[in-house]
């Protein structure tokens, strides 16, 4: 086990950080939010042109062939800047096609992802179904029927990866979003971004892989969420440390009150927990060692402990922490979004419990 990043991974992280630092400020975020579109295309173009979108795609289809740790670095940087681009859905879906798709599929689709002409997303969650590996959406003779919820960027993506059940085997398949046999409904979300409900009614679908691919998608999704949460909580904590060092009450900086200092020190440990467990899980996944236990532990930190971080950082800001006129709130909303994605604390513990009990 070695969590040191390679030179290439470090370079990717630095490049992403540089682009994001240059591009993102409060005004840019506000402008994107006003469009209700939640997509900063200019930033996306920069990611594409500097090769970041292809970084974790294999070289034969135009990518740079980096691994899941590089993916974690990219998503962490996004989280640090709360950048509204479809990075997670596109990269995770593309990497799934890359790993499990036929060469035909890979060659026809992935170069267009890498060069920015196409976007991907995924649809894995169903209403009141906590079992990722047991979708209710059916796949039969190349057609899928069922309803998926909380799909990100479905209005921008060209194709969507859908988990479905083929007899008794879960499968991942890919669906063209222009297919008329799809009904798309926007839903509001706490993060402010539209999330989509997709209903498929005998919609044509191409199978990408079987049980193994669904399992892999589940794992990489969780690791990716943890990676974004890592970035989100890192910045929220940094903002809080600097706010409490500057703001004075009772004639002294807030951070000189031990109740504040100690609480923030606890959050440093919480963020550290997210970091270590996320990298550990990502590393195992990247070298194809069974990673489920580590992934669930990471997601627990990235939900349960992240909620604690969200509240502590908000709270130490006083009224500023619940106001939309101060930038911290975006981090709180992202935090909550990720916390509740694919199961919050208890659901994760439940899965971990059944994993431990059956091993």
């Amino acid at each position, binding site marked *: 086990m070695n969590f040191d990043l390679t030179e290439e991974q470090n370079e990717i992280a630095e490049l992403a950080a540089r682009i994001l630092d240059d591009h993102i400020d409060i005004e840019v975020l506000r402008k994107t939010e006003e469009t209700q579109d939640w997509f900063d295309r200019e930033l996306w173009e920069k990611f594409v042109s500097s090769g970041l979108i292809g970084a974790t795609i294999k070289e034969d289809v135009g990518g740079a062939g980096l691994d899941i740790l590089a993916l974690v670095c990219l998503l962490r940087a996004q989280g640090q800047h709360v950048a509204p681009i479809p990075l997670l859905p596109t990269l995770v879906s593309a990497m799934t096609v890359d790993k499990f798709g036929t060469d035909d599929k890979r060659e026809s689709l992935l170069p267009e992802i890498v060069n920015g002409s196409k976007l991907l997303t995924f649809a894995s969650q169903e*209403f009141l179904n906590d079992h990722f590996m047991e979708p209710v959406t059916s796949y039969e003779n190349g057609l899928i029927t069922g309803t998926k919820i*909380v799909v990100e960027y479905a209005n921008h993506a060209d194709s969507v990866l859908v988990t479905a059940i083929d007899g008794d085997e879960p499968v991942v398949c890919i669906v063209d979003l222009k297919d008329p046999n799809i009904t798309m409904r926007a839903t509001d979300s706490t993060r402010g971004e539209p*999330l989509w409900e997709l209903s498929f009614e005998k919609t044509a679908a191409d199978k990408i892989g079987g049980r193994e691919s669904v399992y892999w998608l589940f794992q990489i999704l969780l690791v990716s969420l943890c990676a974004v949460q890592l970035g989100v909580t890192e910045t929220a904590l940094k903002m809080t440390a600097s706010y409490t060092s500057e703001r004075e*009450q009772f004639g002294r900086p807030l951070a000189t009150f031990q109740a504040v200092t100690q609480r923030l020190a606890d959050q440093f440990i919480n963020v550290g927990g997210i970091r270590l467990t996320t990298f550990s899980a990502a590393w195992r996944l990247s070298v194809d060692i069974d990673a489920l236990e580590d992934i669930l532990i990471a997601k627990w930190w990235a939900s349960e402990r992240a909620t604690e971080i969200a509240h502590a950082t908000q*709270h130490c800001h006083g009224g500023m922490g619940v106001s939309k006129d101060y930038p911290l709130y975006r981090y709180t909303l992202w935090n909550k979004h990720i916390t509740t994605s694919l199961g919050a604390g208890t*659901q994760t513990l439940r899965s971990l419990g059944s994993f431990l009990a059956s091993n």
Partner: protein
Amino acid sequence: MQENDQTPHSSIQDEESFRSAVVDFLEENCKQIGKSESGLDDDPERVKECKSFQKELFKAGLAALSYSKEYGGGGLTKKHQELFDEIARDWRLPNGPLYISHGMCLPMLDQYGTDEQKNTFMKDCISGEKIWCQLFSEPGAGSDVASLSTRASRDGDEWVISGQKVWTSGAHYADLGMVVARTDPSLPKHKGLSMFIVDFTDPTVEVKPLKQISGGSGFNEVFFNETRISSNRLLGDLNQGWNLAVSMLMFERVSIGAGGGSLTADRTPALIELAKTLDKNSDPCIRQMLSDLWIREKIRRFIGQRVRDSAAAGLVPGPEGSIAKLNGSLLARLFRNASMEIVGTSGQAWKIGDDDAEKWAIGCLAASGVSIAGGTDEVQRNIIGERVLGLPKEPDPFKGASWDSVPRN
């Protein structure tokens, strides 16, 4: 007082008939609590709805039950109010926007108002005709509210108020406000403050709504641009504003902690309903969370009972208000966690127009404000440490120094 005198007071004094009068009224005028949660109180529709509800309540002689009839109250006892609150727990009273008027400003008027002030303000406050807000916090003075800088200077028969307040809940629909301002900067910070009643329709009072993380605009920035008020709008004695502020904050803490506010009323029953609807009521983890909340809400009621009993015995609420507030803030967070576990993905996204789902999600975001509003958890803990446990105070290097000699940012 005309309409009030026609109410059947004599017949509702005994418990049985009082109870049935209350139930009749509630059945007629509001909805039973279902799975819905109250969320945003700043919607203009809700303010309207609140006002007309309160008017009916007032007409029925059921508003502000323990306050004197002379000033528009019910002329009954605290016991009656308690019974009312107990019965009303099962109903959704649309009176959120009156939370500050009745929880904080009304008891202050009652306790510190001159006869003239009581005559002028109490009845309209009780009937909901006029809505009040309270203005302590400033950009530079939150936890250290005693260091506030809004000035009130005497000019003949008037006071001239200048300065900025922030986080003022409900100022955008308030008609009147209780404002703490500095009347003598040469005194130590706690000593030179006074409380004033300010008319919010005055054009020199400028209200700028602030957006809240939960999506609504519940609170505001308020600017006083040389606002002139007559000298009979001073509440309590000159330079005694800190004592009044402490009483008022205690009323607030009692309200937040001991029940009443939409964020802290008993909500486990609604959550149990929700768990049933979403078929999660047989999940042992969820059941455990619900039982835990049920117990904690029961304990809160006991705490509230103690606080109200001491208030009923004529005591100004003391540090037990801090205990109630601290407990209420913890409860709000536990409730948030439990509700998010139960709603699952619906807490993240909801069908546009699905108000119920949206309210759960938003209620969850509002929980973090409870630990800040009315004095943060740390401030409450300090009060408990100093005033309940008798621990030594944190050393204050500026103790006794005049306000204007202390540096502040």
